[in-house]
């Protein structure tokens, strides 16, 4: 119950619902698990003494309302999702410190809405650099030599740069992954042509790491175990689709090389 001195006192039911929906939207857009979103939203409602609201969250939609026919219900469709752990951390601080929150309702809604449009803490060139570094390190860890280290650094960086440059055209997730796979394949082939000590497998394995949906797959299984069957289905099939698309991109380039490029090279 709201028995502590807080800036958010005496909210109406609609205001609580708006607040909870804003929090849920932020969490889901920035890559939280569905069970976590449901948990945060219900906890927020409990805090204000509202116990009869139901939340249903899948990776693409939030449905939020009560069981009576007079009650209001809110629906929010989520179209784009990315991972931004900084926002998750901020929201976590907000929901845990509700008791000592000093701002009023309007200011809080403003705070949440600006967070929706806020730029992430790292810009895209830094992301490309991080992708290059992690590709290189994974190539080394998974059994490559020093040449592979350099080649995977270049390949991972180039793939991410291509992805970010094409991001302005808003490709669907499938095409995005196909293009990333194709960029990795082409750059890795180029590196292998440059140096004889590069091994194709180590380079591609390292450079693929930032794009592979292993985490999505594991999160899907976690959703299954927590009992969220629909979001588990969504995430697992999404992960399988992404793996398929990135493989199509990479394999397409390699097949083209073996069929036509190899003879030109000779």
């Amino acid at each position, binding site marked *: 119950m709201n028995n502590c001195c807080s800036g958010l006192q005496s909210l109406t039911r609609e205001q609580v619902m708006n607040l909870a929906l804003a929090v849920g939207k932020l969490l889901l857009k920035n890559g939280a698990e569905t069970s976590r979103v449901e948990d945060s939203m219900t906890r927020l409602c409990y805090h204000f003494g509202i116990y009869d609201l139901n939340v249903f969250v899948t990776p693409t939609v939030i449905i939020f309302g009560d069981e009576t026919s007079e009650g209001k219900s809110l629906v929010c469709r989520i179209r784009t999702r990315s991972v931004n752990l900084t926002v998750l951390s901020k929201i976590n601080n907000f929901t845990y410190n509700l008791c000592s929150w000093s701002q009023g309702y309007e200011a809080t809604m403003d705070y949440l809405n600006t967070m929706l449009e806020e730029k992430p803490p790292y810009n895209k060139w830094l992301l490309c650099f991080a992708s290059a570094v992690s590709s290189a390190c994974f190539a080394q860890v998974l059994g490559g030599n020093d040449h592979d280290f350099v080649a995977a650094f270049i390949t991972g960086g180039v793939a991410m740069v291509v992805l970010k440059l094409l991001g302005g055209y808003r490709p669907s997730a499938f095409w995005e992954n196909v293009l990333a796979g194709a960029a990795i394949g082409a750059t890795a082939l180029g590196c292998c042509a440059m140096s004889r000590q590069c091994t194709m497998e180590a380079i591609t394995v390292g450079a693929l790491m930032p794009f592979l949906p292993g985490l999505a*797959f594991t999160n899907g299984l976690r959703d299954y175990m927590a009992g969220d069957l629909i979001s588990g289905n969504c995430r697992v099939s999404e992960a399988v689709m992404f793996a398929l698309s990135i493989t199509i991109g990479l394999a397409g380039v390699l097949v083209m090389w073996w069929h036509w490029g190899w003879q030109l090279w000779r």
Partner: protein
Amino acid sequence: MFLHFFFSFIATAAFGVLFQAPKRTLAMCGLVGAIGWCIYKYLGTNLEYSSFYANFAATVALSVFAELFARVAKEPATIFIATGVIPLVPGLGLYKGMNMIIGSNYDQGVTILITAATDSMAIALGVMMVASILRVLHVRKLKKLI
């Protein structure tokens, strides 16, 4: 083993940047990932455990550290777990399996895919086990206070 620790540390910290983790948590993310990977590597290659048990043990150790760092840094544990699990997660298995299936090597492809599925099940089990044990302990502590 030291090289493994070093490279997986850097790789996981770079993944923290990719996931837009707050700046002051990056080093801890890297440490969590490196611990998980080294335990996995040690159990998997030196002691020759099967990959399910190696993944499970590594994830349990990793999530204990993640929960510890979450208490220290006052951040949600998801930050450390989502980045720390990255070296273990079988994205590569998914890719290799799909590659085999596209090349119509169905037997090997399906084998690799199923291994990937069981591995990620081990990881999910490990994460959830630590989280639920901690939740039970937390509830008991609260009850004692009341």
